[in-house]
């Protein structure tokens, strides 16, 4: 930047500043001029008077009078004298019962929020409602960084997308909850975007469609939020928005249609209705994986977005109601499914969304038995659990390529009903894992360091290809033997430090895999001897 050193430049700077100041001021002034205000009525008493009731029963409500002796008596008295308080009470009750009184106070009050000027034709938008707030917020935020609101700066592009999105959100001007929320929420969102861009400036790769992406996300969040303006979703809005922006490139690289983004933004926000306990990382995981998965599905089938959105909503809903998941884990489970499944899942979805959903549901229900057996005091950690899901899902998907969806679903559901039944062998990883858990629990007490379990599990996954072709009974024998080896060796060296433990287990595992037929070995000590573990 050239330093200001000459009178001309100084004058130019002042002129430019005045011009900018004028434009911004004009924006605020327009916002104020057009803003709706609620107009009060003159004072009036909302109580129905006796004469009103009397005249009603003289004319429209005459037919009721002859049917009810008490009312008849009251009506006769009201016409010639005044009623006592008890009679007035009954008289009003009859009126309220017979006179159609169909109105809703909240709805009526909505008629009193009135703009100073109306745009012909178009319904009012959120943007027009909160333009003044946005401008004043923008001034506060950017008054010392005006270069960021240059049209070519991506801050400016993000904000344009945001405001274009706002401009397309219809809303009821008279709904005070919506108005209050909008006026409080969207300027905050504006600040949220600005802060995010500022923090991520160095790492952002601006895609030509990003402005539209931001626009659709804004619409999705805005519409979902305003549909239920009293909810706590507003707390999540800025975070959700930032997460979408952060993961935009995941989607933009593959997708050919943008409207789904809006649906996904709304859908993600609606997950909060399920009372899911979301953490920022969980939310981010869902968004990243959903965008990635949707991008893959839509890459070849750009027109299926409504179907996909409904599918995701259905899946989220069903999984969130599954009692085997701790709610705090659900977002990451969903994220893991969609990320791990990747192309295979997307392909499967393209063939049959319904069967894919059924497969996933059955997959998780079948794992319920395993999860129930996991000790509550620490293992497996969340990461281990997600690894189980990843591995299992990949196997499930590979199986599903050879079995029909119906066969697979039936098999998995059978496994759910009887996890030790012969049908369970169709899904050996999980069946055997269940057995393994039982063995571990028998052999290792809870004083066993956590890393032993983690290491066990890590190596356990190495066996999956072996288990895959192994009859169930042999698998169980294998597990039993292996567990004994681990148990004997680890305790033989107890106390043992972590590195040594891992080393021992790795050797045993490799040896077992190399043997191919470990089931014939009768003595663990014999193997240990061969391994020469010292």
């Amino acid at each position, binding site marked *: 930047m050239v330093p200001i050193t000459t009178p001309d430049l100084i004058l130019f700077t002042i002129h430019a*500043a005045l011009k900018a100041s004028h434009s911004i001021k004009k924006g605020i002034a327009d916002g104020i001029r057009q803003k709706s205000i609620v107009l009060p009525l003159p004072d009036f008493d909302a109580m129905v008077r006796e004469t009103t009731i009397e005249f009603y029963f003289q004319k429209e409500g005459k037919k009721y009078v002859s049917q009810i002796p008490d009312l008849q008596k009251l009506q006769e008295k009201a016409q010639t004298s005044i009623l006592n308080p008890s009679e007035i009470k009954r008289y009003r009750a009859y009126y309220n019962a017979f006179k159609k009184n*169909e*109105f809703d106070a909240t709805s*009526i009050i909505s008629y009193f929020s009135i703009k100073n000027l109306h745009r012909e034709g178009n319904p009012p938008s959120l943007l027009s409602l909160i333009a003044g707030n946005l401008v*004043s917020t923008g001034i506060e935020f950017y008054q010392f960084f*005006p270069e960021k609101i240059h049209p070519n700066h991506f801050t400016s592009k993000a904000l344009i997308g945001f405001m274009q999105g706002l401009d397309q959100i219809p809303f009821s001007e008279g709904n005070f909850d919506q108005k209050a929320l909008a006026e409080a929420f969207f300027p905050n969102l504006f600040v949220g975007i600005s802060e995010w861009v500022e923090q991520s400036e160095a790492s952002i790769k601006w895609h030509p469609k990003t402005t539209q992406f931001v626009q659709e996300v804004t619409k999705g969040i805005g519409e979902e939020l305003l549909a239920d303006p009293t909810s706590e979703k507003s707390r999540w809005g800025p975070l959700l928005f930032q997460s979408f922006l952060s993961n935009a490139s995941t989607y933009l690289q593959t997708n050919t249609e943008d409207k789904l983004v809006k649906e996904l933004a709304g859908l993600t926000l609606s997950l909060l209705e399920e009372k899911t306990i979301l953490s920022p990382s969980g939310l981010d995981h869902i968004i990243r994986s959903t965008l990635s998965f949707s991008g893959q599905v839509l890459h070849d089938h750009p027109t299926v977005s409504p179907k996909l959105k409904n599918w995701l909503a259905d899946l989220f809903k069903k999984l969130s109601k599954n009692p085997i998941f701790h709610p705090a884990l659900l977002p990451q489970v969903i994220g893991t499914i969609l990320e791990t499944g990747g192309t295979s899942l997307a392909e499967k979805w393209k063939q049959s969304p319904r069967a894919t959903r059924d497969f996933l549901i059955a997959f998780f229900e079948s794992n319920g038995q395993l999860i129930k057996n996991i000790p509550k005091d620490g293992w497996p950690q969340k990461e281990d659990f997600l690894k189980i899901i990843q591995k299992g899902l990949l196997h499930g998907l590979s199986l599903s390529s050879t079995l029909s969806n119906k066969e697979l679903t039936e098999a998995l559901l059978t496994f759910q009903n009887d996890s030790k039944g012969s049908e369970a062998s169709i899904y050996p990883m999980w069946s055997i894992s269940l057995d393994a858990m039982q063995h571990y629990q028998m052999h290792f007490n809870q004083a066993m360091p956590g890393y032993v379990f983690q290491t066990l599990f890590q190596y356990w996954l190495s066996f999956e290809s072996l288990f895959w072709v192994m009859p169930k009974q042999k698998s169980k024998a294998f597990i039993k033997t292996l567990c004994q080896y681990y148990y004997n060796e680890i305790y033989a060296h107890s106390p043992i430090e972590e590195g040594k433990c891992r080393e021992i287990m790795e050797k045993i595992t490799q040896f077992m895999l190399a043997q191919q037929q470990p089931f014939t070995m009768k003595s663990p000590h014999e193997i240990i001897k061969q391994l020469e573990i010292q």
Partner: protein
Amino acid sequence: MKTYTTILGFLLLTACGGFKELQNAQDHFSKAASIELQNQFDPQNISLDHPDNWYQLAYSNVKKALQNTPSLERDSLLGMAYSLKALCEWKLQKYQLAEISRKAALNRIKTANRNYALMTALPDLIHMDVTTAALKQTFLNINPQGEQIIHFFQTYFPEGKQWKHIKNAMLQTPDEKATLIYLVQAQLSGLKGWSDALDGLKQYMDAGNSYPLILREIFANQYQQYLEEKGTVMDFLRQDPSLVELFNYWNTLLL
């Protein structure tokens, strides 16, 4: 750049001070009105928050905004500011000040918009409040005198002269539906006062008091005029299916 931004920041901070006060005044006024409407239309759920506190706050905001009159004038916001001031003064029962502000607003509003209609109608809105206060004073009196009642009707419901300001405002804003609906409802509020006054008169006569015979005549005449006025206003609601709730509400309440 630093110089530029400093200048810009300075200009904005100094120039927009009045705007912020005006925005606050709008928000506080809306808040007050919302509470008041809630109390009027849903008396079972009276708010503990008193609308006058918010009207007072809005009034204070708009007076501060008006300390920066040249800036408001340059941005054509002076009419808005005076309108809001007049509305606050109406609700805070500072009727004489409201009239001064109203005239100031009308002098500066250049188009027939919501504010213009409101300022045109304001004398009637104020008159309705004054009428309601007088109504309570006249009929809540334990032993109202016939002369007092006669005086009340002659003063507040003179024959053929109801709400000319509101009607004038409606003629000037024929395309502003939301504003028209508001003005119709303002008339209905006034009609409710009239309806209550007729009820008070009838109750007075039915109570067995000895009263001047002219009261019967007053009742008959006033009731007839009331029905004509009510018919016109209710027709406005009846003709628009989207206003059925409003129609039902007032139809239940009015004589």
